[in-house]
């Protein structure tokens, strides 16, 4: 018994060491999404490119798609924009949420850097962003044909992130077929 007790500090040290080591590879800025597997929040917002048209969450339904939260004030959005254009050319459906931005600037940006979005809504107040739990642009969501949020990525979309998003979209597609 006594001898076993002698090893207690070592055991505590190893336990602590394990948790601290695990902590090194956890990204504290990555929050679990509270909206996962829930329907896309309801909204009624004007289209960015056709200001007279009002879009709602119903317009996102129909097929699995990406919903990208972006703004002209966000440098990382610019970084990922070319990749989104490429995805759009490959036939991926991408919707845009122009988050807390000025529509005039946003339209100029899309003219200049091309528009990968099937449609963009103007979320000038950030209300939709708030309902989605957006805490920093860019964010990209995968929604299924019923408009349910299946995945969320915070940060730029690049080839590596796309692999994750694509896996989710493929899983949705096979799930729908069966």
């Amino acid at each position, binding site marked *: 018994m006594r001898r076993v007790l002698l090893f207690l500090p070592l055991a505590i040290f190893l336990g602590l060491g394990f948790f601290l080591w695990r902590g090194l590879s956890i990204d*504290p*800025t990555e*929050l*679990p*999404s*509270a*909206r996962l597997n829930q329907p896309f929040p309801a909204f009624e917002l004007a289209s960015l490119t056709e200001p007279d048209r009002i879009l709602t969450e119903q317009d996102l339904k129909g097929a699995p798609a990406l919903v990208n939260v972006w703004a002209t004030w966000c440098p990382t959005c610019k970084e990922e924009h070319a990749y989104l254009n490429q995805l759009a050319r490959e036939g991926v459906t991408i919707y845009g949420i122009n988050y*807390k931005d000025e529509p005039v600037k946003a339209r100029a940006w899309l003219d200049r850097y091309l528009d990968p979005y099937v449609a963009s809504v103007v979320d000038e107040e*950030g209300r939709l962003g*708030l*309902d*989605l*739990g957006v*805490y*920093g642009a860019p964010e990209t969501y995968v929604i299924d044909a019923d408009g349910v949020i299946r995945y969320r990525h915070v940060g730029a979309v690049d080839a590596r992130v796309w692999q994750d998003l694509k896996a989710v979209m493929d899983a949705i597609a096979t799930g729908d077929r069966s």
Partner: protein
Amino acid sequence: MKHLLLSLLLLWPLSVTAAIDAYEFSDPVTEARFQELTAELRCPKCQNNNIADSNSPIASDLRREVYLMLEAGATDQEVVNFMVDRYGEFVLYRPRVNEMTWLLWYGPFGLLAVGLVVVLLVSRNRRRRQSAGPQRELDARERERLNKLLQQDKDT
């Protein structure tokens, strides 16, 4: 001394408010609830700041949301639920008590109990060892050595 105290007093910060927006509250109670809530909700972007202290756009949006909800008559619980629905349990500086957080809430008391048990065991062990059997008497040689050592101390 008086000068030192005076200068220290002058260095004392008189106000430590950080929030910058000016909201008009319908009554002081609502204002107090607003202060309390914003101090307990964590800013999702600028971590380790509450939304009351943070200047980030998202924190100011959330403050506005809390303000509007309170003025519309929402309870504290409704405001907290609203935030948790959107940003997850992460936004709570005071986590809820549930299966996930039992260790967090009660762990320290468990550790305290373990510590108490260890202290009790150790002290009981020691007492038993002290009371166990009469101590052996010193034999002649040992006594002589002890005396010598005591003598040494006296000399110095």
